[in-house]
């Protein structure tokens, strides 16, 4: 049977999220033609945006009053899944919330965080926070439900011609047991740690909350978010939400600057997808240097002001 792939589109407000184009890119490794389901209000430009992605042959626009909650959405997606061999969603919080609920309604397992498609039934995915890569095979003759690891895919080109949009009303009534209250977006002066392209992080070596504050100046110079090792969090220098690592945030910025961080395994796990890792540590044998692209053996207290001076002085 030829593969038929449905991508569950994600939208934020009235806009199609970038995650959808990445899912379509993954889906095209399974089959050349992809259909996308979007859940949005009638007027939202979400369906048109999905229809403009290369490889998309049809958009199913389910007219949906925002916001979309998993408990309400899952039965709709499970109904739409009929006739498809694969149903893919993004491994964003939206997709992680929704897709396992869809899989369970369909009575199948889910393949989480697909990073590579080997063939329509075989996929690679990270386990142990990326410290190992599993090759898994989905059973033949069952719907394959999967989420797509967004860091592994780039959005494809725009289509030459927009795909047709098939608008429809939802089939079922949403359950009353789950109610949306509000969304508080975290708008701040500083970039968000999870999505920042640059991150400056400090460890236990900084010694105090006051010393840690000196990293903020460096972060502001770089336009970076601030993170911390678990040791720094456990020492009470910074709040929990700054923790980077397997039990904190797993991040993949363009630049990760680790200052006074020795590099416990669980911390390294949280940063190893960063494009460039820079480590500044007094101890030349610190494990952080094993994965750093650029290392500097220096005490943080002298290095931070020197680095600030070098950033401000050097010609761009």
């Amino acid at each position, binding site marked *: 049977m030829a593969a038929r792939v449905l991508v569950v589109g994600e939208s934020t407000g009235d806009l199609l999220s970038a995650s959808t184009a990445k899912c379509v890119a993954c889906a095209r490794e399974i089959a050349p033609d992809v259909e996308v389901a979007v859940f949005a209000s009638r007027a939202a430009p979400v369906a048109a945006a999905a229809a403009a992605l290369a490889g998309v042959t049809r958009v199913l626009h389910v007219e949906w009053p925002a916001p979309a909650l998993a408990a309400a959405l899952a039965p709709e997606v499970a109904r739409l899944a009929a006739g498809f061999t694969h149903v893919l969603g993004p491994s964003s919080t939206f997709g992680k919330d929704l897709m396992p609920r869809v*899989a369970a309604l369909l009575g199948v397992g889910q393949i989480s965080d697909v990073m590579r498609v080997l063939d329509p039934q075989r996929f690679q995915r990270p386990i142990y926070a990326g410290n190992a890569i599993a090759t898994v095979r989905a059973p033949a003759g069952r719907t394959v439900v999967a989420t797509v690891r967004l860091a592994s895919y780039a959005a494809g080109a725009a289509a030459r011609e927009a795909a047709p949009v098939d608008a429809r009303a939802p089939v079922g009534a949403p359950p009353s047991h789950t109610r949306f209250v509000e969304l508080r977006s975290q708008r701040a002066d500083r970039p968000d740690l999870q999505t920042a392209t640059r991150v400056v992080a400090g460890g236990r070596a900084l010694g105090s909350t006051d010393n840690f504050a000196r990293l903020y100046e460096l972060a502001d110079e770089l336009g970076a978010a601030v993170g911390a090792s678990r040791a720094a969090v456990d020492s009470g220098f910074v709040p929990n939400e700054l923790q980077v690592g397997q039990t904190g945030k797993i991040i993949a910025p363009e*630049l990760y600057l680790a200052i006074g961080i020795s590099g416990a395994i669980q911390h390294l796990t949280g940063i190893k997808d960063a494009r460039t890792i820079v480590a500044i540590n007094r101890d030349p044998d610190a494990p952080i240097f094993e994965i750093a692209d650029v290392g500097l053996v220096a005490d943080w207290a002298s290095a931070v002001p020197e680095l600030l001076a070098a950033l401000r002085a050097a010609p761009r």
Partner: protein
Amino acid sequence: MVCIKRVVDYNVRVRVKPDGTGVAVDGLKMSINPFDEIALEEALRLKERGQAGEVLVVSIGAADAQQQLRTGLAMGADRALLVEAAAPLEPLGVARALHALVARERPDLVLLGKQAIDDDHAQTGQMLAALWDRPQATFASRVEIAGTHATVTREVDAGLEVIEVDLPAVVTTDLRLNQPRYVKLPEILKAKKKPLDVLRLDSLGIDARAEIVVERVDAPAPRARGIRVRDCAELVTVLRQRGVL
């Protein structure tokens, strides 16, 4: 009801077996999955605030998961239940087992970690909620119980989403929800006297066969070897050359 999984401790570096059959876990320190520990801590706090009558801690897995259940009892759970399974289960199998337990135990709230740090599936809670046809509140960073419903703050990509769910419901916990307590020695001794029941997976009458085959497990491609620089000026020069700055 709190569901915990026995996993390799988060501080241990795992190694992939050279023959590609999996990750070598023999002899490694094993712990409660950290996110599940947060789930248990939250249940204990609900009880301490008078919002929960009893805290039941359950695990689905091999016999040695009794160690982690004992730790859960030492943290303060009232009783423990192990569903002993001969082979590892997939999240759907675990969710089916939990669904069977929910029918027996009739909890008002099921708490579990948002994901286990070994397989990183992040599926079980959502699957249980689907099978049970009850609300789910995943990635919780705040849980407030008020009568017959709970208000849960969820950590989502766009910020913090607040939803209200009728009880019973399934809540999966994120890191920021709380800091689990340390277990004190007298509690460990006391926990030995608390009830820990063992059920066989077969007795639940569910289909828990694994369907997704793990063909092999490989180590990730290693990072290219890095360089050392002498000072901050050289560091800035190197980063500019590489187009990072």
